[in-house]
């Protein structure tokens, strides 16, 4: 009897809850951590990769493409980077939807979609699954790091229920509570990108399960403004660039894992 209200996404339980949505959020809190920090002159995003291993073929992520391993951090549009936590397959479908929505805006208005609008487009889709049904909601939370001329740099978070909110710094996925309290202590209102990068990496290293940080466990991206064109510049780091960054921040793993370095 207790499971009577579990199976359908659109039926309230007697306490007024939608269990499937809550289960989806629960699934996300076990997913790899994604962390975002809004700075004065940019936005920083980092994510913990869960699918790792010596035998995994990562050759395609090392060169070509726009950076990133395609697991957690995606380029949604010229002006927005998305970080996903939850079911990767669901996320792929949402990323595809977001890219289409962004391009449709570009087609009609000949300008990049405002960041909040893009978040709203995805939330409308997600909300649909809490009311009109389907088999299950999207088991995905997203962070949107973006820029538009209306509000400059922005960071948004959306969850499976279709709620979204803007943040100065936030975290989704495993250990998000720990990360958020760390961010709350360390965040300063006029932080700059170069300090935000350090803050993100330090927070990541404290919340991730593994003791050492490295490109095989981490995805990283920064959105800034191009000095000359004044257009947003999204940079998703390649594994070699992540290792170089970690080394320069003094967070590189110890020398005993030399075999990983050789690869």
């Amino acid at each position, binding site marked *: 009897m207790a499971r009577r209200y579990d199976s359908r996404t659109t039926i309230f339980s007697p306490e007024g809850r939608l269990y499937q949505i809550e289960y989806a959020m629960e699934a996300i809190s076990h997913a790899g951590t994604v962390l975002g920090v809004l700075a004065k002159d940019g936005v920083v995003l980092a994510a913990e990769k869960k699918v790792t291993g010596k035998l995994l073929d990562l050759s395609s992520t090392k060169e070509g493409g726009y950076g990133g391993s395609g697991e957690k951090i995606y380029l949604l549009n010229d002006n927005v980077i998305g970080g996903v936590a939850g079911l990767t397959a669901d996320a792929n479908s949402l990323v595809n939807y977001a890219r289409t929505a962004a391009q449709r805006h570009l*087609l*009609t208005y*000949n*300008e990049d979609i*405002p960041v*909040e*609008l893009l978040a*709203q487009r995805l939330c409308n889709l997600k909300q649909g699954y809490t009311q009109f049904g389907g088999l299950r909601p999207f088991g995905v939370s997203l962070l949107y790091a973006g820029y538009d001329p*209306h509000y400059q740099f922005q960071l948004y978070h959306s969850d499976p229920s279709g709620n979204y909110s803007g943040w100065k710094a936030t975290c989704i996925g495993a250990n998000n509570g720990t990360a958020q309290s760390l961010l709350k202590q360390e965040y300063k209102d006029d932080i700059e990108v170069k300090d935000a990068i350090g803050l993100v990496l330090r927070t990541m290293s404290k919340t991730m399960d593994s003791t050492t940080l490295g490109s095989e466990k981490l995805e990283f991206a920064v959105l800034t403004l191009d000095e000359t064109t004044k257009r947003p510049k999204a940079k998703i780091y390649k594994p070699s660039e992540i290792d170089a960054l970690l080394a320069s921040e003094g967070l590189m793993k110890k020398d005993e894992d030399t075999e990983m370095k050789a690869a």
Partner: protein
Amino acid sequence: METSFAITGKGYVLVAADTTAARSIVKMKTDEDKIKILSPHLLMAYSGEPGDTIQFSEYVERNIRLYQIRNTLTLGPSAAASWIRRSLADSIRSRRPYAVNLLVGGYDTSSHTPELYWIDYLGTLTKIPFGAHGYGSYFALSLLDRYHDPEASLEEGIATLKRCLDEVAKRLVVSPGKYLVKVVDKDGVREIEI
């Protein structure tokens, strides 16, 4: 005959349109406002087939308002002009196209620049420093080539505009008698006497 002009200057766009509503050879009224205020920083002068102009300009006005209500953000001049162009491009490929020509002038509140767009019923869109529609354009454009200054103050801009209106009054057989002039700048839209 129907004529509209627009010129940009330092921080503003001046838009002028004649005020005649005519049918065949008969003037029906001489105080028609053919410049629509689309948003606090956006103006649109329209000309063309009489019924179409009203229908289309109201359609544009309401859609731009709808965007504002839905998204809380206002459309900038460039985005609005692109949307209008798309509407006309779709229209001309439909069964009953709108025959409407437009000058869209606006002040971009995020980049702090005045912007002017020339749009015709075929769905052509060009960003220009000055422009005109109708028979008046044959007289005014060469004048503006000579006298337009993108750094001109509002008074200088008005003087240049007056030159155009005077030239049209002097040389065009069917010149309109009266014009309505509106300006858009950082403070928004207002009508000015000329």
